[in-house]
């Protein structure tokens, strides 16, 4: 019942960089959960705690034990890890 997806995406509503990561997750059919934070950087302690930075998007991937931020890095990581031969 409480099967938690291995990937957690920290995101901000309407943030285009976050949507870019979502598109990639969807493209690869990856199961993920979304955790939304507030627009003010000062209200993002949870993101700082997990990634060292207050920026979103940030993902935690328990499949690989990896945490990272910056959409470009994340997309590249997803392509390498889940992109297969395509």
């Amino acid at each position: 019942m409480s099967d938690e997806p291995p990937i957690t995406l920290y995101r901000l509503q309407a943030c285009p960089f976050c949507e870019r990561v979502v598109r990639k997750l969807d493209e690869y059919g990856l199961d993920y959960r979304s955790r939304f934070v507030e627009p003010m950087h000062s209200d993002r302690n949870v993101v700082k705690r997990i990634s060292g930075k207050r920026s979103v998007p940030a993902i935690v991937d328990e499949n690989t034990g990896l945490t990272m931020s910056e959409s470009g890095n994340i997309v590249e990581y997803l392509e390498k890890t889940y992109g297969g031969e395509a």
Partner: protein
Amino acid sequence: MEFDVVELPDADHPEVGDTAPDFTRPLVNEEFWEDRSLSSLTAEGPVLLVAHPMDGAFPATYVWNEIDDRGWADDVDVVGLSISTPYEHASLLDERADGARLFADPGAGVAEQYGIEHDLDGMAGITEHRPAMFLLDGDRTVEYAWVASEWPEFPEYDAVEAAIESL
């Protein structure tokens, strides 16, 4: 001075011994919100589900102040429920509801599931939750239930507290 209290229609809500309906909504804590099901919370222990008018209305403020004063969040998983958005819930948590988390149910769909809808007079198109408290065990069985029958009406705090203590 007398003042008029509005009688609310009978609520067809879950009673003691019933299984409370499960639902999934964004659950707001002090740091973020994510979709969570009620059953995923009860799976971790008993839950006090506190339905209340929209954040900012005085009954919502009074209820959370009282819960804070009584320190219920130390004894049971206290979870709020209103039509307010996650952003409003985050603001409420900055001020009160210490240790609690809040479900956002802007469409009042959970209010309908629980039979505790309240169509607000003078606020066109807005239905919210009437004040209610449900103490649920790990199987979502209702151990205690209270639903407002008048508007405004406040919970029977001592009775809720006794129910929490007898968990």
